[in-house]
């Protein structure tokens, strides 16, 4: 599983960070950083929730 963020769409709403802070982090510069682009399979349901909840539909999973 590979986490892909379309940074042209991302507006740093930080919803993903609220759901999986281990993977997504919005820093003081207001930009989103993906801390782990290839998380463990056990994180899949959380990452999927972040995909569903992103207001900009900016996150996707590539298998």
């Amino acid at each position, binding site marked *: 599983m590979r986490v892909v963020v379309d940074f042209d769409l991302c*507006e*740093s*709403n*930080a919803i993903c960070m609220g759901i999986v802070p281990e993977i997504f982090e*919005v820093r*003081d510069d207001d930009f989103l950083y993906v801390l782990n682009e290839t998380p463990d399979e056990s994180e899949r349901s959380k990452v999927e929730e972040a995909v*569903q909840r992103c*207001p900009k539909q900016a996150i996707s999973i590539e298998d």
Partner: protein
Amino acid sequence: MDSTHTTVVVGASLAGMHAARTLRVGGHAGRIIVLDADSHTPYDKPPLSKQVLSEGWEPEQLALHVLNEDLDLELRLGFRATGLDLDGRTVTGEGPGEPEVAFDSLVLACGAAARHLPGTDGVDGVHVVRSLDDALALRSDLEASPGRVVVIGAGFIGAEVAASCRTLDIDVTIVEVLPLPLERVLGAEMGEVCAALHRAHDVDLRLGTGVDHLDTVPTAEGGRRVVGVALSDGTSVAAEVVVVGIGVTVNTGWLEGSGLTLDDGIVCDDTLLAAPGVTAAGDIARYPSKRFGQMLRVEHWDHAIEGGEAAARRLLADMKGEEPTPFDPVPWFWSDQYDRKIQLAGRPLPTDEVQVVEGDPAEFRFVAIYGRGEQLVGVLGMNRPRHVMQLRRILEQGGTVEQALERAASF
């Protein structure tokens, strides 16, 4: 699960589509039929007041991502539901296909419609922004570079439309009947900050005044076109375009007499169940929130997804013989205005005590918290998403003002 069990979802917007998705992902084996009066491919609504107006986004850029998944849903678009027979288990309606749609389970997610200014229907240049067609019609008028747009109502839709117009370098007047924008949602102090944000972008803000009537002229086609807005304070504003953002009314008219309990929404229990095998979600669902100690009906984007998912899980629990779980999230929303992102978590009242815990409202970059006694009841941020999300967690855990202050001290 029973592959002959059919679920009908009324409403193919966010709540309905996420309900359908959750049903299928959760093991619903039978038909899932999604009905919607709107004939466009199901779309996301937040960009309608922003990217569609000021960045030229096209309809295909708005398509809900749920549509990319292989969920075997039967979409019937352009089909307007007009009646519900709970005993006979059918929805009737008008549009393509058979007028009667039979169901075993039903999700009602048919949302709300924009309120219109009385007596303005059919007047050229007067708009609401609720559907894709609304937004495209407004965009078409904005492309003609009007001299001034008057926005009636300084709520979130009005504020976002005003910001989009300023981005397009169109002059804007906002008319708001309350003394401050968003005063009922954010309180006076933060309403003042929102007013200042508009003024900083050269918006002519007319507060504490309503609309008396619209000035119109005849058109060559025999209709009428707006040329100005006469305000209740006796002044008037010339306008080639008027955008009305004065709230919504729930789409429950077709459910009158169906046996469901209606009260500015469909009244549900704490699991979003409205009747046996029938749930409601999104703008239309009114449910008892233990967290807030009151009946809630919430019109937020995120709440529509969560509600859609919960309404589906409620039905799945019945199908699987499992214990249903209550639906009681912390409401949350965002609003993009100019280059600012406003986020609010919780449900504060104007009477709650507000304090800024980070940043400076004068710079439109800050975090404020709302307290009711010791209890933390809301978190507001402007261009501070990270901090809002961190404080939202405390809110979700039912935390105190003091806990929020402690957390904020480490920002």
